[in-house]
C-alpha cells in the first residue's frame, strides 16, 4: 500500500488486514504507556485546507502514539491565504522531508493529484476531499461494526476469556446490513462506506430524499430508498446498524428540502424509529452531529449509540493506516 486515497484501493484482504492491525493498535491504547517507538524518526504532515476537529486530532494522536514527528498545517493563517498553490505547498513539504502527508481538501481529487503529480515522494492519506471520499472514516466505521457485530462485543454473555481469544480476527462483515441515512449527495463518508462495506461483504441501504441522492446512484453497489420508516421496519431486511449523516448546511446554498422540520420528521432518527429497529442494531454518526435535526438526543445518547466509541476507534484505525503506509522497505 503506497497511498490511501479511496476506500476502493482496498480489496477484501487488505481491508481486513487494516482492521486486524487496528485491533492490535487498540489493545496497545489500553496500556498505561500508550506510545510505541514504531515510526520513530518519520515525519507526518497534517495538511488541512478545511476545518476539522476530530479527524485532525485523531491523525495527530495516531502519529504521536507511534512516535512520528507531526507537523500541522492548516490553510488558515498560512501562505495559502496569500495565494500559494497546492503544488508549491507540496514542494515545500517535500523539501522538509515529509514521509507521509495527510490531506483534507475542499476539492474532490486533490489528494489524488498530490499523490500522482510527482511533487512529493511520501505516502498520501486522504482525510476527506470535497464530496468524494473519506477512507479512514469508512475504515473506523467498519472497525466499529465488526467489533460489535462479529467480534469481542457481539456476545456480551460470553465469559471474558472467550471474548479475549480474538478468534474473530480475519473475518469480514459478510451478511450484515447497514442503512446510511441522510445527505448522501454531499457525503464523502457515505461514498467511502458504500465501497468499503460492499468490499467487506455487507449490504448497504441508502436512505435519503431524492434531492440528496447523487445522479447515477443506480450504479453504486447498494440499494436505496426514500422512506426511512419502511427501512427501519425491515422493508429491506433486518438492519444491523443505522448510520446517520450530517446535513451539510455549508454545502447547501440551494434548498434541497422544504424545511428543516420536515426533513427532521421524515429522515431524522428519533425514539420511535429506534424502537422499530432490531434490539442489537447500532446507531452510528460520523460527527459532528446536528442534534435535533438528523438525530434526536435520545438516539444519540442511547446505549446502542457508538458515536463516542467511533472517535476512539478512529485513533486505532489511523495508527494502523500509518503503520501500513510507513513501515516496510517500499516506503
Amino acid at each position, binding site marked *: 500500500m503506497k497511498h490511501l486515497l479511496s476506500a476502493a484501493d482496498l480489496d477484501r484482504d487488505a481491508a481486513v*488486514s487494516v482492521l*486486524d*492491525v487496528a485491533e*492490535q*493498535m487498540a*489493545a*496497545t491504547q489500553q*496500556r498505561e*504507556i500508550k*506510545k*510505541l*517507538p*514504531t515510526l520513530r524518526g518519520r515525519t507526518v504532515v497534517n495538511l488541512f485546507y478545511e476545518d476539522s476537529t476530530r479527524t485532525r486530532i485523531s491523525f495527530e494522536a495516531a502519529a504521536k502514539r*507511534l512516535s512520528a514527528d507531526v507537523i500541522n498545517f492548516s490553510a488558515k493563517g498560512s501562505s495559502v491565504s496569500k495565494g500559494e498553490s497546492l503544488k508549491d505547498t507540496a514542494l515545500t513539504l517535500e523539501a522538509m522531508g515529509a514521509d507521509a502527508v495527510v490531506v483534507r481538501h475542499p476539492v474532490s481529487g486533490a489528494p489524488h493529484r498530490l499523490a500522482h503529480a510527482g511533487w512529493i515522494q511520501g505516502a498520501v492519506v486522504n482525510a476527506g476531499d470535497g464530496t468524494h471520499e473519506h477512507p479512514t472514516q469508512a475504515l473506523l466505521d467498519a472497525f466499529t461494526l465488526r467489533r460489535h457485530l462479529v467480534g469481542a462485543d457481539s456476545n456480551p454473555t460470553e465469559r471474558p476469556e472467550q471474548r*479475549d481469544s*480474538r478468534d474473530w480476527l480475519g473475518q469480514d462483515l459478510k451478511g450484515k446490513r447497514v442503512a446510511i441515512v441522510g445527505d448522501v449527495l454531499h457525503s464523502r463518508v457515505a461514498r467511502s462506506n458504500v465501497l468499503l462495506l460492499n468490499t467487506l461483504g455487507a449490504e448497504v441501504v441508502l436512505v435519503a430524499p431524492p434531492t440528496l441522492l447523487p445522479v447515477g446512484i443506480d450504479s453504486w453497489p447498494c440499494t436505496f430508498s426514500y422512506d426511512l420508516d419502511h427501512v427501519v421496519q425491515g422493508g429491506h431486511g433486518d438492519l444491523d446498524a443505522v448510520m446517520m449523516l450530517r446535513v451539510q448546511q455549508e454545502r447547501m446554498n440551494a434548498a434541497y428540502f422544504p424545511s428543516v422540520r420536515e426533513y427532521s420528521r421524515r429522515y431524522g432518527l428519533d425514539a420511535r424509529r429506534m424502537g422499530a429497529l432490531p434490539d442489537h442494531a447500532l446507531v452510528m454518526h460520523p460527527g459532528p452531529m446536528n442534534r435535533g435535526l438528523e438525530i434526536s438526543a435520545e438516539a444519540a445518547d442511547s446505549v446502542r449509540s457508538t458515536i463516542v466509541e467511533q472517535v476512539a476507534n478512529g485513533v486505532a484505525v489511523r495508527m494502523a493506516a500509518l*503503520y*501500513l503506509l510507513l*513501515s*516496510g*522497505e*517500499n*516506503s
Partner: protein
Amino acid sequence: MSSARRATAPPVPTGSSPSVQPAPDARSVLEAAEINRALSRIAHEVLERNKGAGGLVLLGIPTRGVHLARRLARRLAEIEGTEVPVGALDVTMHRDDLRRQPMRTIGATDLPDGGIDDRVVVLVDDVLYSGRTIRAALDAISDLGRPRAVRLAVLVDRGHRELPIRADHVGKNLPTSQLERVRVHLAEVDGEDSVWIEGGA
C-alpha cells in the same frame, strides 16, 4: 516471529502462516523426542534457577515462542503442581528493522492477569540469532511494566549475535553458517515437531 532466521534480508513470511515443506537440501537436526527432552530440561533449569515456580511469568514471542511457552508452562505445572501464568509478547512495533523489511503483520500481546510488575519474566522464543528480536522484546517489556528480572529461554541458539545478549536456558546449541536457515516446526502450527537446517551448501 517467523521461524526462518535468515542471513540477509529476504522476504520474511508472516508469523502465523504454516511453513512450507523443507527444501530438498534440508537436514533434520532435532526430532520430536529431542525437542521434548530439551523442553523438560529447560523447565527444570527454570525452576532450579528461580528456586521454585513462585513469581514466574512466561512470555512467548509469537508465533512459535507462544506455543513453546505454553508447553513449558504445562511442564512446570506437572513438576511443581502450581499453575504458572503464560502470555504472549508481540515485539513487531519495537523492531529496529521495520524500514528494511517488507511490512510485518502485528501479532497479539496478551499479558496474564496480574501483569509482570515485580515478577520474574521468562521470555520464550524458538530461535536465538542476531539478538535483535530479544532487544525489541526488552523494550516492549519496559513499556508494559517493571519485572524483577527477565530471563531468556530458547529452543535453538544458532549463534551470530549482533548485540550483547545471551540466553539463560538453551534447548540446543546449533553452530550454523550465516548462509543457512534454521526452521523450527511445532505440532501446533506445522503439524509436527522438528528442527531443520537448510541452504548454505
